[in-house]
């Protein structure tokens, strides 16, 4: 074992190759990230700067043609808008519902431990399965959710949720909100547990009500926790693919076509260079958004 190079004896190896230097500890991870993270990224950039000649089937250098194409591509712009709408809507629902449910379940009485455990179950369902789960419930003919929504007149029998361009995105978002609201609940519950008691005692003496405490004490003290949760959710929401694939395949029309899904579809029709360009644009948008957020919210890992 190289890294146990003896102390005291004359060193056999330069120090940066021994266990007393961080390099050997970090090197295997870096090799992995370089080989399967950075190199593929460089490969993507190369792909995005080339176009495949239809006849010779050889990639030919095309400069920024793919990039220029993307910004004139209405379908790409639409998918970007769908993705932003999806991300923001789900985020609002998950944060608001998450706070409300966390406050509701933050209780020491009997039974609440079980409720909190049950609440974590949706988190580990494969998202593709979640998509199918909601597809089954939202089916226009025999879906259980559709049935009750029809009973109370929210959905008309002629326009099933997922077949109607106006409601299809909401149908997909329902799956996301169901699966990831528990993520917010869990993280906020941990945040609530860590809050100091004294400010609440002082507020109670001053006669503050529940809503005043929530607005002036709880939410400000939870802001860091909420920031971390929002950051992680934003990353995942922005690259949403699985639910769309399982539930609507982007349809009806392109009503639920997100960025990931559009890039995947372009890849599927063998336009690899353009698909790589789209995925890079997505990566850039996401990174700029996240790093801005990290700086503004001062989140540290």
């Amino acid at each position, binding site marked *: 074992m190289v890294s146990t*190079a003896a102390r005291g004896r004359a060193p056999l190896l330069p120090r940066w190759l021994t266990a007393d230097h961080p390099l050997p500890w970090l090197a295997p991870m870096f090799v992995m*990230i370089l080989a399967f993270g950075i190199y593929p990224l460089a490969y993507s950039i190369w792909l995005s700067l080339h176009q495949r000649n239809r006849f010779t089937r050889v990639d030919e250098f095309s400069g920024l043609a793919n990039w220029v194409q993307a910004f004139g591509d209405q379908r790409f712009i639409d998918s970007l808008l769908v993705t932003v709408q999806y991300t923001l809507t789900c985020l609002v629902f998950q944060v608001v519902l998450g706070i409300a449910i966390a406050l509701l379940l933050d209780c020491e009485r009997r039974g609440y431990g079980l*409720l909190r455990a049950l609440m974590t179950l949706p988190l580990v369902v494969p*998202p593709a399965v979640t998509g199918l789960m909601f597809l089954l419930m939202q089916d226009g003919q025999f879906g259980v959710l559709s049935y009750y929504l029809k009973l109370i007149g929210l959905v008309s029998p002629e326009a099933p949720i997922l077949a109607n361009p106006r409601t299809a995105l909401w149908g997909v978002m329902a799956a996301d909100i169901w699966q990831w609201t528990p993520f917010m609940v869990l993280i906020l519950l941990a945040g609530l547990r860590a809050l100091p008691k004294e400010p609440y005692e002082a507020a109670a003496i001053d006669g503050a009500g529940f809503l005043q405490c929530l607005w002036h004490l709880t939410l400000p003290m939870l802001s860091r926790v909420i920031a971390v949760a929002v950051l992680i959710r934003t990353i995942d929401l922005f690259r949403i693919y699985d639910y769309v694939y399982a539930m609507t395949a982007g349809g009806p029309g392109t009503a639920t076509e997100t960025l990931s899904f559009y*890039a995947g579809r372009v890849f599927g029709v063998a336009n690899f260079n353009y698909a790589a360009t789209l995925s890079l644009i997505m990566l850039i948008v*996401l990174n700029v958004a996240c790093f801005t957020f990290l700086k503004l919210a001062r989140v540290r890992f």
Partner: protein
Amino acid sequence: MQGSPASRLARDLAAWLVVLVFVFPLFWWVLASVKPYTAIFAQPPVYVDFEATAENYAVTIGGQSRITLEGGVGGQTGGASSYYSLPSIRDSVIVALGSTALALVLATLASFGLSRFAMRGKDHVVFFVLAQRMLPPIAVAIPLFFIFRDLGLRDSHLGLILAHTLINLPLAVLLLKSFFDDVPVELDESAMLDGATRFQVFRMVVLPLVKGGLAATAVLCFIFSWTEFLISLLLTTSIRTIPVKITTFVTSTGTEWGLITALGSAALVPSFIFILLVQKHLVRGLTLGSLKS
């Protein structure tokens, strides 16, 4: 906020109601898997009034022929093997175990290094690792498709293991670093004063103290790989992990809901067992070590 018995009761009711709403889709899913064909499509929805059957499981996991099912999608015969999903379960287990093991080895070494050494630009290294978490799966899968084709790794267990390991690394490294950071450095220093080498400190002093953290990290990596979809979809054709396999049951001639729910329910079992095992470290895991419960 203890309040009167009435308000306590109201809170209990509200809490149960909310949780039931969140459990209902799972209940409905598992229920459909034991329903006979006609009960799945019944209107109004059927809750208890049906004869439970294990047929869907017999086809997907037992390998019984699909033709023996009553009812069924009209005109579609044969193809029994395509609903037989035990090979998919095997593929999923191999990939999940392999990528978990590899990610754990790489991450344990790296996070010990990040936790124990003062170095210039450490924040940048942590940032760099975190940035990998922001790679959209589609941006990983597209170039890997070509790289793996050239290396002969396309449609192989090893290729999928490597891809999942990459996606799991940020979680594993940042999470384990937070567990290593919990172990006081003074322990290392006193052991080294007693003549232990750095590697001995790692193996015999620090590692045993983060066993719980290692287990939690392993479980979360496993669950991630078990549920991953897009990369498996694009990088494999004959190897089918469960989430990819299950979407192939949705066909143009009809959707085999009985078989889908049976395989889907079976896929939930390991996830549910594991998530209950790591409840204590779940928050830390989900936030990549930045929050503790």
